[in-house]
């Protein structure tokens, strides 16, 4: 009997304590953020989406190399001597057309490793997080502002220049040969020589650079293909 009474008392006491707590909470401010209408203030240095200020990009590919998941794909075209691409806002001279700057946000691991190497601070993380799509190919964000015509134009000009330089070089070589023959014959004509050498040299480096680039690209492609093959083989062996 005493136990029953004390149990009853305890029951009501605890029920009223609980009701007191819930009643207090009935009037406390709710913690809900009504998302599309209200948004939380984002913390500083959030990593949500990559953005490239393409006007400042010098096409140095440091970000592409820094990326651990290879989500950045950059293509550059060397500018010709008569083109002036201007300077970046940080005062770097731009020498390359950036005809391709694709960032695949579906691959991106948000490590921000690409942001720090950039010499012109043109690749940054921005506070944008509502970019989900129905197709993952839509998550590849192209940042290059060049039109296909412009790219074609740049390629054409580069080829023409290379052609012109090669012809010039050949002419220079021929002249040199002739001069050497002439020298061998005894005649001396030292005046034009350094100029020819300089122009010849620049053509060579440009040509070399282009070739080197192609070689590098081929090498990278080969490496990628090898890696892919390796992965597939591994998968197969696992299966």
């Amino acid at each position, binding site marked *: 009997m005493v136990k029953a009474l004390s149990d009853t008392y305890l029951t009501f006491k605890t029920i009223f304590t609980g009701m007191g707590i819930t*009643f207090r*909470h009935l009037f406390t401010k*709710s*913690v*809900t953020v*009504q998302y599309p209408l209200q948004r939380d203030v984002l913390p500083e240095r959030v990593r949500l989406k990559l953005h490239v200020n393409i006007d400042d990009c010098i096409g140095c590919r440091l970000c592409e190399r820094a990326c651990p998941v290879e989500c950045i794909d950059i293509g550059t075209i060397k500018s010709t001597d008569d083109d002036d691409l201007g300077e970046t806002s940080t005062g770097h001279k731009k020498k390359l057309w950036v005809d391709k700057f694709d960032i695949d946000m579906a691959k991106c691991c948000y490590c921000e490793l690409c942001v720090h190497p950039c010499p012109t601070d043109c690749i940054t993380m921005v506070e944008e997080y509502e970019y989900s799509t129905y197709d993952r190919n839509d998550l590849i964000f192209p940042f290059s502002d060049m039109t296909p015509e412009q790219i074609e134009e740049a390629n054409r000009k580069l080829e023409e220049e290379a052609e012109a330089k090669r012809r010039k070089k050949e002419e220079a070589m021929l002249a040199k040969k002739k001069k050497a023959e002439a020298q061998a014959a005894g005649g001396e004509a030292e005046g034009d020589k350094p100029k020819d050498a300089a122009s010849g040299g620049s053509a060579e480096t440009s040509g070399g650079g282009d070739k080197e680039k192609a070689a590098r690209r081929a090498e990278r492609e080969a490496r990628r293909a090898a890696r892919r093959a390796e992965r597939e083989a591994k998968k197969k062996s696992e299966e």
Partner: protein
Amino acid sequence: MQQFLESFLPAGPVVVFVFSIIPLMIILIYALFAIWLERKVAGHIQDRLGPMQTGGWHGWAQTIADLLKMIQKEDIVPAKADRFLFKMAPFIAFAASYAAFVAIPFSSGYIGSMIDVGVFYIVAITSLLSVSIIMAGWASNNKWSLLGAMRTAAQTVSYEVPTVVTILSVIIVTGTLNLMEVTEMQTGNAFLGFLPNWFIFHSPFMMIAFVLFFIASLAESHRVPFDLPESESELVGGYQTEYSGMRWGLFMLTEYADMLLLSLVGATLFFGGWNSPFGSFMDGPVWGAFWMLLKGMVLVFVMMWLRWTLPRLRVDQLMNLCWKYLIPLSFVNLVLIALWEMIF
């Protein structure tokens, strides 16, 4: 009320129809409001907001949107279910709870039927509810549904005893089963000079009777902490499991109508029904309906408040509470109230 309706409607079946449909309108509008309120109370108690978008102001139209959605839904009957009983059960459930409203005096001018067995009729007709729930559970051919239905049977049968005994203790004081007469006996503000003549202030034992009645009515309407028949978290909705669309909606409506019914019975028996708490101030048939529904809604709110405070009881705890505490207490209380009546 009937005369008032006859003044502008053709007499005969139309008046009877309009007269009898008034409680249905009250139930439907109340259910729309109460479901919204339940979600708001739940939200705010848990420091959330509840529905906020539908309809503009604090999501007031959320229940209407849900209702429209429910009407459009497919009416699924399980292949192995007993089609007839399965389809029938929600209608019987709602009919039982709607039929009970006939004996409730909504105001001094409106009561469905002035039957002299009022409270007894309410207690009897609401028993039909457990029949319909067993029907639903068994016809579903689903073990969880059947478990829920069997729990309901056990619970309703047990808790009807304290409910009836506490009602009986009020009947000892009133001497009548007609709820209109019970309400009329509580008119006036004579008690201690200012308190209304409500039975809750009649004697200390009346307060105990009300507490017992309220606990038992929680169990009768299957509300938390006694919602074992439904217990979403363990029986996936109990007898409602196999129901979809508007048939499920009818069970929901029944649950809320039942809450209102028991709250109104509680308000009539203990809180003066349609009587104004300020004597003759704000009194009259229309104010009477207002006070009656306000008192009912306050009790409904307390039920919601309790729902978001207390955890669910176990089956054995439920039976313990009923047979070891509520029933002995209510019988002792009945005797004490009878003695109080004899002495004073």
